[in-house]
């Protein structure tokens, strides 16, 4: 009998919680929340975004929170459903997010992002050497991309591969195609020989090399791609309405005004510069040609 | 004469295409105490079921198996006899926190079958005979004028069985009970109905019958007994 009563109480309390839960979770002064695509080692992400949060809070006068996500689409989802107002996107995820949220804008990119590059890296056992031309010898080997929605780890390398092998998909070109999830993991997989060749973000390669995580005897860069636009800060169009007129401009100025090397270094960037949505138009075309965008 | 309490005209029943009862005509008037007798499988339980189906809202039932909810207390099992006459909210409340008035009423009914002290026991913990008496108490508590009972004292000895049948007759106007004990039937019923092979083979006042006259309907079972 008592058990039945308890069950009844349990169920009714639960319904109450489900109904009132989300509403109760809203804080009175709405914090400004941002995220970033998890493109490399999480410890580095926590370091860089933690610093950005502290910096922005000082400049913007509202509480600023960083929310970590586990994969690229989760970052885009958090942006489209309004959980975050600002995100550090890759070129392609930025395009996806801005198409899904009308009115949102790219406001700043790293100085390096206007002309970003992909490195093709290969395990030493393949015997592949660095070349200026596209290394067609990678055909028939195993190949790993980064995340499915990565610009430098998927979209652009796939585009270059399709260019080099007209009429063929990567699955047809290579013996096996994998998606490592992030660039640091791509480097590990190629270094260990799990995959013969991989496509990696050049800035993560540089950061990981500097951090001593890359064994030059096992893995090396065999090709540098032509340049393309990549990472950027994208903000939702409704922030001015929420945080006051001119908030977008204030945010943009704050990002561009970052000079502290302690913040910039974990990004692998020298500074942030203003940018507009138009700068990423080329990626829309690439997305369409590879079938990743409608 | 008053309106009959039960009226079955040319009633029949079948299980899976096999006729169990056929062409049954039975009229029972208020105040009559009818014992339905016959071999097992003759259709006694089916006849009780037919009557119940005809006047469900006037019937208090003592089923063949005690049919108690074993995980509930004796009190709750008896209380169930009046479930239809209380509001849902009261019933649900009683499940958790019974009212004193209900407890007293049920205790009084249990006293009539000698179980007043088992009010709070779990029904499943009682012996077979005790469970049967709880089942009777449930029908007594129900209090509807027509009491239908299917072997209500089969698990009791003859003395105890007699006491229980007397209690049943005391508060219910009309009784129809399937019985197999000839002497109990003769001493507690005013009328004997014998069912044989799906038909009524005998329907007579008990006053004019004796055990020997009835016994011929149970020859096979005597062999077992």
């Amino acid at each position: 009998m008592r058990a039945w009563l308890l069950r009844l109480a349990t169920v009714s309390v639960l319904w109450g919680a489900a109904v009132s839960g989300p509403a109760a979770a809203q804080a009175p002064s709405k914090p400004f929340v941002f995220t970033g695509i998890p493109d490399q080692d999480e410890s580095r992400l926590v370091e860089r975004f933690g610093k950005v949060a502290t910096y922005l809070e000082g400049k913007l006068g509202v509480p600023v929170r960083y929310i970590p996500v586990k994969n690229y689409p989760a970052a885009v989802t958090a942006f489209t459903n309004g959980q975050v107002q600002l995100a550090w996107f890759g070129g392609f995820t930025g395009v996806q997010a801005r198409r899904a949220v009308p009115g949102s804008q790219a406001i700043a990119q790293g100085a390096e992002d206007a002309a970003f590059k992909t490195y093709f890296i290969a395990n030493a056992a393949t015997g592949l050497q660095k070349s200026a031309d596209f290394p067609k010898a990678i055909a028939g080997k195993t190949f790993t991309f980064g995340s499915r929605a990565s610009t430098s780890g998927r979209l652009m390398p796939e585009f270059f591969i399709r260019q080099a092998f007209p009429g063929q998909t990567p699955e047809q070109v290579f013996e096996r195609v994998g998606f490592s999830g992030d660039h640091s993991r791509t480097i590990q997989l190629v270094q260990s020989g799990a995959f013969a060749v991989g496509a990696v973000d050049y800035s993560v390669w540089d950061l990981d090399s500097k951090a001593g995580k890359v064994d030059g005897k096992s893995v090396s860069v065999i090709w540098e791609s032509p340049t393309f636009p990549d990472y950027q800060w994208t903000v939702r169009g409704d922030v001015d309405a929420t945080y006051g007129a001119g908030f977008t401009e204030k945010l943009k100025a704050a990002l561009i005004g970052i000079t502290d090397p302690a913040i910039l270094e974990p990004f692998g960037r020298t500074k942030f510069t203003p940018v507009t949505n138009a700068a990423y138009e080329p990626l829309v075309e690439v997305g369409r040609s590879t079938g990743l965008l409608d | 004469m008053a309106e009959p309490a039960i009226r079955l005209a040319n009633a029949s029943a079948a299980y899976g295409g096999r006729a169990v009862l056929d062409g049954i005509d039975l009229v029972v008037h208020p105040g009559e105490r009818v014992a339905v007798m016959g071999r097992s499988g003759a259709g006694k339980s089916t006849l009780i079921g037919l009557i119940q189906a005809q006047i469900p809202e006037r019937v208090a039932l003592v089923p063949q198996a005690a049919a108690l909810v074993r995980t509930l207390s004796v009190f709750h099992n008896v209380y169930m006899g009046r479930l239809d006459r209380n509001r849902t909210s009261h019933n649900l409340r009683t499940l958790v926190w019974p009212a004193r008035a209900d407890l007293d009423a049920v205790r009084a009914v249990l006293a009539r079958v000698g179980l007043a002290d088992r009010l709070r026991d779990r029904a499943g913990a009682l012996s077979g005979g005790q469970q049967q008496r709880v089942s009777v108490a449930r029908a007594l508590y129900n209090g509807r004028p027509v009491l239908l009972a299917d072997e209500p004292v089969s698990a009791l000895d003859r003395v105890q069985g007699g006491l229980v049948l007397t209690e049943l007759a005391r508060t219910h106007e009309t009784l129809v009970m399937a019985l197999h004990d000839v002497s109990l039937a003769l001493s507690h019923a005013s009328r004997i109905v014998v069912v044989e092979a799906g038909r009524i083979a005998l329907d007579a006042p008990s006053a004019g019958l004796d055990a020997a006259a009835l016994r011929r309907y149970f020859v096979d079972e005597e062999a077992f007994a």
Partner: protein
Amino acid sequence: MRLHVLPGILPAPRWPRPGYAAVSRWFAILGLAALLAADLHVTSLHPWSDLERLLGGLVRPDFLAVEGASILYTVAFAVLGVGLGAGAGFLLAIPYARFRAVRIACAFLRAVHELFWALLLMQVFGLSATTGILAIALPYAGICAKVYAEIIEEADLSALRVLPAGSDPVSAFAYARLPEVLASIRAYTFYRLECGMRSTLVLGFIGLPTIGFYLESAFRQGRYGEAGALMLVFYALIGTRRLWVRGWTLPLLVLGAILALPPMVGSTDVGASLARFLGHDIVPAPLRHASLLAPDTWLETWAALWAWFRPILTGQILPGTLQTLVLAQVALVATAIGALVLFPLTARHFAGPVARPFGRVLLVTVRSTPEYMLAYVALQLLGPSMLPAILALSIHNAGIIGYLMGRHADGLTYRPDAPRGLNLYAYETVPRLYGQFLAYLLYRWEIILRESAIFGILGVATLGFYVDAAIAELRLDVAAVLILATALVAIAVDAASRALRRSLRIADLPVRLASTDTPRSSAPVTA
């Protein structure tokens, strides 16, 4: 004793239908064929050294690195998710037997894996407690409704028939039905809470702040000491479940869980997100702007819809389904072999007094480890192919079935002159338990299939692989169609399993795990 003593290996001649041997043979043949079709490539070069480091983490756990809040959130999500699911399941169980629509809705709810639910819910509720709780509650409502309905159906109804005519249905249910079934329902619900904690852990792998969140990070970055500590904490949670999940602790657990829920970082506009999600995102692209009310454009719309659907069908659903079935088939046969090999470890007559506790701990441990996590670890070690997925599924499920079989084996009584050792195993134990063994195996078939589909998210080319791709491309309409297809495949396998169990006359043998969980009873188990 409800264990039916059935002739095992040889089909009984009076049964015209396929016997145990024929069914076993067909499953084994299909499993072999699937094995030939499966991709078993090992891409990693140093799986053993990685495994060594992983086990090293378990031996030298770094408890200081464990994020305490994640343990709290894991329990809180599980308690509230299972509570809500069980509550809804209970309400659905009442009309379950009578209304086909309810049964279909429940079949669908449970056919969609909690990870898929979470991916969909995240679109609307973001990374929040609501997403975590609902992702558990929705499929669990479907499962609980079915099982509760079965329990209610099996209950003794005699008291219900005796109720005075005119009793209202609510009172009738509360008095004559509920008390009969409460104990079984309670045992099952508490067992589900354990499953709920496994599910919650797995939700961490896609971003909810449970133990899984930190486990994923730790695995990914090779912090095996932290990973080991997290796993040990999780095993401790599961292992002590009986101590802290009891009738009287429930209100405290629920209250505590509500208070312990993580505050949401930021907030989503649920109304707008839901409208966009239902009204736009999951609507097939060709229908989004089509006017469905104008009959003259119907033909065009249908053509466009077919043109949209065809490549999904041929390029994703069909190959994905094939791979899912292949993986599930191999895993099922591997599970069967594993369970037959493992169960003597926990059975009195085979394992000695030293080996038996050890065997039990081993099987309970692999059973407590979510198969998704096993697969994740195996994939890190071996690279993305079917091999790690097969290993994960068969280890977890062989652990479960082996443990249960061991307990059934202990319930058997042997004649005094019964043989010993391998002869006892082959001539007495296995033949007598074979029907029960098949019942468990066929019951797990659907569960294995659901997991096979979900492993696609980890990189095996099953249906989940294409769902993951569709979500990465922000094509939620495609993702929704693929999830629907996955659900249909799961429902079909469930139906096939039930038909087979019926035709083998093993449909009434216990398959639920709940009532077998009591360590006190060593008697054979009835559900």
